[in-house]
C-alpha cells in the first residue's frame, strides 16, 4: 500500500477530506521554504504538492508566476526541489507530489527523473502540461511503478474523456475547479459539485479539487463532494506578503490549521 492509498483510507475512516498544500519549492529561498513546509506538516496538512519553478508557467496565475520567479532567482532547480523533498521525507511520512511543467523533467531525462524522485521519497508526480496524449513518452522511461502519476481533469473535459483519463491515472485525480489559471477568482461551488459528481461516477480514484480555493468555506464545501481540496496561490500570497517577516512559518501554520479544520466533516 502506498502512502497515498493509506492516507485516503485513513481519512475516509475519520470522515475527513484531504488538505493538499501547494508550495513552490525554494520560494523565497530554500531555507525558508523548508521552514514553511515544516509548519504546514505540523499544522496537519495531508499532502504536500511541491512545485518545481519554471520560467514559463502558462497554467499559473500571477501569484504562482511570481513565486516561481523568486525561486528561480535563488537558483532553484528540479534537482534541488527533489533535495527539498528528501529533507521533508527525513522528518515526516506526509505524501509528497512533485508538481512540474514538462520541460525541466525533459531536460533531466525521464529515466533519471523517476529514479531521483523515488530516491527522494516522492510519492507521485503531476506534470501539468503532459496530457494523456503525450504522457506515454515519459511513463515508458520509468523503470518501476513506485511513483503515482496524477492526472488533471477540467470542467470542460467530456465525461468519456474523464473515464479514459481516470483509467490511466494513479494516486488521485486532480479536478481543476474552473476554466482558468491557478489563483483565479470566481469559484463556483455548485458547478464544482456537479463536475466532481460527474467525475466520481466514472472514476474509482480519490478526487481532489484545486484552482481558486483559498478559504475554509471553500474547503469544507469541496470536501463534501470530493475527497480533498488543493490550496496553492493562497499560501503563496501569504509568503509573498511576508517575505521578510520572521513569523512567516507561524502565519502559514495558522492558515493551514484553519483550512485543515474545514476538512473535518464530523
Amino acid at each position, binding site marked *: 500500500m502506498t502512502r497515498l492509498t493509506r492516507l485516503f483510507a485513513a481519512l475516509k475512516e475519520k470522515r475527513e477530506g484531504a488538505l493538499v498544500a501547494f508550495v513552490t519549492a525554494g520560494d523565497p529561498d530554500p531555507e525558508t521554504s523548508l521552514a514553511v513546509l515544516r509548519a504546514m506538516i505540523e499544522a496537519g496538512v495531508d499532502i504536500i504538492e511541491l512545485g518545481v519553478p519554471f520560467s*514559463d508557467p502558462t*497554467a499559473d496565475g500571477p501569484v504562482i508566476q511570481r513565486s516561481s520567479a523568486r525561486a528561480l532567482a535563488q537558483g532553484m532547480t528540479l534537482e534541488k526541489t527533489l533535495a527539498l523533498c528528501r529533507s521533508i521525507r527525513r522528518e515526516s511520512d506526509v505524501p509528497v507530489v512533485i508538481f512540474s511543467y514538462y*520541460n525541466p523533467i*525533459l531536460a533531466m531525462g525521464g529515466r533519471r527523473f523517476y529514479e531521483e524522485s523515488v530516491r527522494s521519497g516522492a510519492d507521485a508526480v503531476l506534470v501539468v502540461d503532459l*496530457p494523456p496524449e503525450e504522457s506515454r513518452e515519459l511513463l515508458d522511461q520509468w523503470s518501476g511503478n513506485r511513483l503515482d502519476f496524477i492526472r488533471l481533469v*477540467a470542467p470542460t*473535459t467530456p465525461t468519456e474523456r474523464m473515464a479514459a483519463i481516470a483509467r490511466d491515472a494513479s494516486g488521485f485525480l486532480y479536478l481543476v475547479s474552473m476554466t*482558468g489559471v491557478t489563483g483565479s477568482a470566481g469559484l463556483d461551488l455548485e458547478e464544482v459539485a456537479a463536475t466532481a459528481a460527474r467525475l466520481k461516477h466514472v472514476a474509482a480514484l480519490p478526487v481532489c479539487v484545486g484552482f481558486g480555493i483559498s478559504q475554509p468555506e471553500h474547503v469544507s464545501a469541496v470536501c463534501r463532494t470530493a475527497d480533498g481540496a488543493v490550496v496553492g496561490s493562497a499560501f503563496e500570497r501569504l509568503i509573498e506578503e511576508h517575505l521578510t517577516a520572521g513569523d512567516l512559518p507561524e502565519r502559514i501554520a495558522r492558515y493551514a490549521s484553519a483550512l485543515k479544520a474545514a476538512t473535518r466533516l464530523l
Partner: protein
Amino acid sequence: MNPTTASRPVSAPSFGAPVQFSPDPRGHFGPFGGRYVAETLMPALLALEAAYESARTDPAFHEAFHALLNEYAGRPTPLTFARRLTAHCGGARIYLKREDLAHTGAHKINNTLGQALLARRMGKTKVIAETGAGQHGVATATAAALFGMECRVFMGTEDVKRQAPNVRRMELLGARVVPVSSGTGTLKDAMNEAMRYWVSAVRDTFYVIGSVAGPHPYPMMVRDFQRVIGDEARRQILEREGRLPDALIACVGGGSNAMGLFYPFLEDPVGLIGVEAAGEGIDTGKHAATLGAGSIGVLHGSKSYVLQDPEGQIREAHSISAGLDYPGVGPEHAWLKESGRARYVAVTDAQALGAFRTLSTLEGIIPALESAHAVAYAMEEAARRSPDEILIVNLSGRGDKDLGIVFRDL
C-alpha cells in the same frame, strides 16, 4: 486525420498535392510537435482540430479564404527579379517574393484571414493574439475589424516600447492591446499570457496564433494558410524561368513565412535554407538561433528546439528584429532540420542591418528587419553560386515599422 488526405486539393489551387511531411494524427512531425498543454486546454484544442478538419475539406471554405486573399489582401503578391542586387552579388539570380506588398505590409495577413474565417465558422465572436513586432497583432486586428469581432492583443512591455507605431495601428483598428510585463516582457511572455487568457475565455474566444508554433493543430493550420506564398512562387518562377529555383531562403523566428514558402517545394529538388537571428553573435549568447544553437525542449504546447539552460528553464532570446526574438521555433522546422531536408543558418544584427541598407539603395525596397536576415544570407549564397542558378528570397514584410530602430543603430 489521415496524412494522405491531410492536404488533398479541394477547389482552390492553393491547397495542393499531399506532402509526406504532414503531421501524424496527433500533430507530431517526427519526434516534434504534439500537444503539451494542461487538460484545461485540451477540449478546446480537440474542438479546434475537428473544426479545422471540416473546414480544410470544405470547398466553400477554400473559396471564401481565397476570395479574401485576392480581393482584400491583394494577392497574388509579385515575384520580383532583383536585377541590381543580383549584379551586386555577382552570382545566382535573386528573386524576391513580395509579401511586403500584401495588405498590412507582411505575410501575417494570410494566416489571420484564414483563422478569422475559421473562428466565424466555429461561432466565436472574439479573437485574441500574441504579438512580438506587432505585425501579427496588426494583421489580427485587421481581420477582426473586417469580421466585426472583438480583438485583444497581448504584447510584451518591451515590444510595446520598441514597436510603438504598431500599437497605435492596432488601437486604431479597434483592438485592445494588453501589455505583458511578466518574464522578459517579450513575445514568449505575450504568448504565455494569451494562453492563460484563452483558458478562461475559451467558450466564445478564438486564439489566433501567429506562427507555425504552439500545440497541434496550429503548426499545421498556420502552415496551410501560409502555403499560398510557396504555391504562388512556384507557379511564378515556372512561368518566368521555365524551371524550379535552386534554393529558397527565408528568415525563421517561429517560422511561418519560411514554412509557407518551403511547404509546396518539399518534394522538389530545391534547397531550403532557413535564416535565424544570430543577434550579437552566437558565441555572445545574445541571439535567437534556436535551431542552430538550441536543444530539444517543450515550450508553448509543442516539442521542438528551444533556447534553454541545462535545467530546462527557457532562456531569453535576442535579436534586433522583434519578430525573430523568440526562444522557440515551429516543430515542422525542427523536423526539416532533423531529417536533413532543410538547413538552417544564422545572420547577425549587423549583417541584417547591412542588407537592410543594401536592398533599400539597390532595389528601392525597404525590407522588414526580419526579412533583411534572409536577404543578408541570400547575398552570400548568391555570390557562391553561378549565374545559371536561381534563388528565391521571401521578402516577408516591409521595413517602415523598423525605421526607428534602424536609425538608432545604423
